[in-house]
């Protein structure tokens, strides 16, 4: 087990290095740079100003040198400074990380609370009106873009109550009500889509398990239907569901780009989009690297969780 864990952790290094190389290369291939953009609002500025600024930011150096310097900094856990604001990248990310984490947790909580019971009920009541309603509900979640639903939610709140979610984030420990008043709405919108995926996965997984011999045996032993479903069917159908839930959770850290814009939530997704649009290379590179790390790490945790959920799985 320890050997397996060590091996998986070591494998993260080439994965993250690959991500770093790709991100660096892609950002340099995309036309335009941060300096031109900084001055873009007035139409244009003289070339000499642009050149001087590029030199100051080190953008005039050869690309291999820029990459080597960045890598050397990363090894020392120095993510550099934002090219747009000149503030440390870690500071830029720190303020947003908690918001994205809370939003991801809230959405996951809502999605799980919806998906597991609905998926099981749909499977147990297969091809009845209950199943149809749940399937329509889930397909709705998949079909409706979250940002569109978000706009509708805001419009509905403003029209009905002349109220909109707060514009400024307040940490949950300072004012839980204000905090939830801002984050609950995007969490519901995102959680709905997220639950739709998980509901369908739970349904098909439970359906598959319900046809297994050991479920028939459990029923033959005279166990109640609730016990059969909860203890035997649900637990054994959780592997794919856990995979979906955890990958979605990792995605939510940086993937809520449009939803964060719509609700004006100051999270990592919004930060990434702004950074890409501003060609803030150091910030984009750091963010993508962090997202990649979260994905790889969550995957690793899920693999470990498999052993707990299914004792037949052994790590060597």
């Amino acid at each position, binding site marked *: 087990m320890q050997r397996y864990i060590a091996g998986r952790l070591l494998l993260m290094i080439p994965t993250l290095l690959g991500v770093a190389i790709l991100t660096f290369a892609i950002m340099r291939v*995309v*036309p*335009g*740079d941060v300096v*031109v*953009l*900084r*001055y*873009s*609002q*007035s*139409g*244009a*500025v*003289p*070339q*000499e*100003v*642009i050149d*001087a*600024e590029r030199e*100051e930011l080190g953008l005039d150096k050869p690309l291999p040198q820029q990459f080597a310097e960045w890598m050397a900094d990363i090894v020392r856990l120095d993510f550099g400074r934002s090219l*747009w*604001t*000149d*503030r440390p990248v870690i500071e*830029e990310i720190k*303020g*947003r990380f908690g918001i994205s984490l809370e939003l991801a947790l809230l959405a996951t909580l809502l999605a799980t609370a919806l998906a597991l019971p609905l998926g099981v009920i749909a499977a147990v009541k297969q091809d009845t009106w209950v199943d149809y309603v749940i399937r329509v509900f889930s397909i709705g979640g998949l079909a409706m873009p979250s940002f569109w639903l978000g*706009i*509708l939610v*805001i*419009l*509905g*709140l*403003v*029209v*009905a109550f*002349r*109220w*909109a979610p*707060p*514009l*400024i*984030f307040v940490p949950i420990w300072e004012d839980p009500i204000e905090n939830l008043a801002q984050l609950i709405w995007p969490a519901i919108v995102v959680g709905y889509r997220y639950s739709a995926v998980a509901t369908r996965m739970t349904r098909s997984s439970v359906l598959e398990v319900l046809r297994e011999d050991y479920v028939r045996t459990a029923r033959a032993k005279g166990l109640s239907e609730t016990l059969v479903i909860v203890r035997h069917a649900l637990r054994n159908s959780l592997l794919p569901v856990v995979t979906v839930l955890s990958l979605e959770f990792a995605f939510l850290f940086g993937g809520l780009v449009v939803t964060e*814009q*719509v*609700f*004006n939530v*100051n999270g990592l997704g*919004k*930060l990434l989009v*702004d950074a890409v*649009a*501003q*060609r803030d290379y150091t910030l984009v590179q750091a963010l993508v690297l962090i997202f990649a790390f979260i994905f790889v790490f969550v995957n690793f945790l899920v693999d470990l969780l498999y052993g707990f959920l299914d004792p037949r799985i052994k790590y060597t």
Partner: protein
Amino acid sequence: MSALFLSTRDKWAGVTHMLRSARRRPSIALALVLSIVLAACQQGQQPVGAGSATAAPTGVAGEQPRPGGTLTYIVSAEPPTFDGHQSTTFATLMPASPHYSILYKLDPADNVSKIIPDIAAGMPQISADKLTYTVKLRTDVKFHDGTKLTSEDVLATYNKIIFPPAGVTSPRRGVYSAVESMTAPDPSNITFKLKYATGSFLAGLASPWNYIYSAAKLKADPKFYEKNIMGTGPFTFVEYVKGSHWTGKKNPDYFEKGKPYLDGYRAVFIGDAARQTAAIRSKQAMIEFRGFTPTQVSDLSRALGQELAIQEASWVCVNYISFNTTKKPFDDPRVRRALTLGIDRWSGGEALSKQTIVKGVGGLMRPGGPFAMPDAELQKIPGFYKDSAKSIADAKKLLADAGVSDLTFKFLNRNVNTPYEPVALFVINEWKKIGVTATHEVKETAAYLADLRNKNFDVGLDFNCDYFDEPDLQLAKFYSVAKPDGTAGLGAGLNLSHYNDPKLDGLIDAQGRETDPTKRKQLVWEIERYAMGEMAWQVPVIWWHRVIPHLAIVRGYRIGSNHYTSMDMASIWLADQK
């Protein structure tokens, strides 16, 4: 417009009543959602009427400013730097200007052309040869750290702007190319010595970007102000949370006694247009100072009725069509003239004003502004004829003469909807009428700017915005990109049609050195006839038009012809909210 708003308000009253019912009877919730969606769709289709709205009063006559309260306003972009001297975007001015003073400013009650002293004690004393400007400073101005402002601070500030030290960028130093030297003969006077007389120097001293900085801070670190705030303005800095908000509180030591009226302000950063509208509609924010689209205005007007005030004004902002003159056939003036002739700006301004933030037809100077060419003269220039049939016929003939009757090219644009997309689509549609096929090539801002600067385009939609009606500012992008000796011209990086025209350079220089306003105006018009009509180097499409809907409780703000000035918030106050 009133009739339109009245009828639509009635519709909204019905929807609102349904919503209240829905809270009691959830069974009609579905119908309710559909109603909201339908109502929203209807709003988008209604003519906005912004064109007929009048500038709302900034307060009721005789009303006395009421102290107190916090102004919350929307800023649609994030500041790339705190340093006004280095910035070129409103995103710096809107949140940061309340912390600073400048030498001269636009009178907030006018906000278009009347220049008044800010930290200056009066208007400058100008020598008979118009080469020396002496500015006497107020003696009661203090920085937020308690130190007294002197002429050394003003001198250090203008040295940073006009003669920046190594490693410090100053994008507008070219505006002050007439300045030979500056001196501070005593703590309350500063003198500017010019190389030649110019009619634009006072406007340069009223630049909203020229925050007065502390000489001591600049001496310790010339880049101090890129990341720190410390001025003499009406509000002191509280905090900036990137991506979220910027706050300031009243400066009790502000030199203008009785001001500011507000206890503080909060600028919230919201990029999404729908969220901006929702913020004002739900009264989370009170105003956005740049300008809303007719659809947003219409939406707010219907929802808020009398609780909303609407101000509008023409804007020193315009989209230009830039031709890549280094590429055939756009090096041929006949082709460029044909393409400007193909655009019926008069009907376009009328139609586009209903859907986006453009309206006025003008030349290189803002229509209605002090240097604007009269319509009767303007209509003699190709591309501005009232007779669109004649324009189309002339354009087709020019294209045929140039041997490109079936001209096809890519029209480069940025992925910003307002107003770029509708303006570009209008132009493309107009060109179809003269047999020209232009493909709309939309790129995100960074790629778009890179293509424009690197000559990697055929024809592009460029833009220009300024803080003042001043030919030296508006004509700066018409200078040649290179001088006859091959060195960089004044238009390098600004002139995105990438041409060289020594004759035009001479004309622009001449108007800048002309101090008689009437003669200067004639010179500017001559430039317009030559640059837009004869050569068609870069041609304006339709001038922008600002419409600001804000909560009626916001008083003391008067819309101007730009979105850069009167941002210190010193004169703004909030009326009783009941």
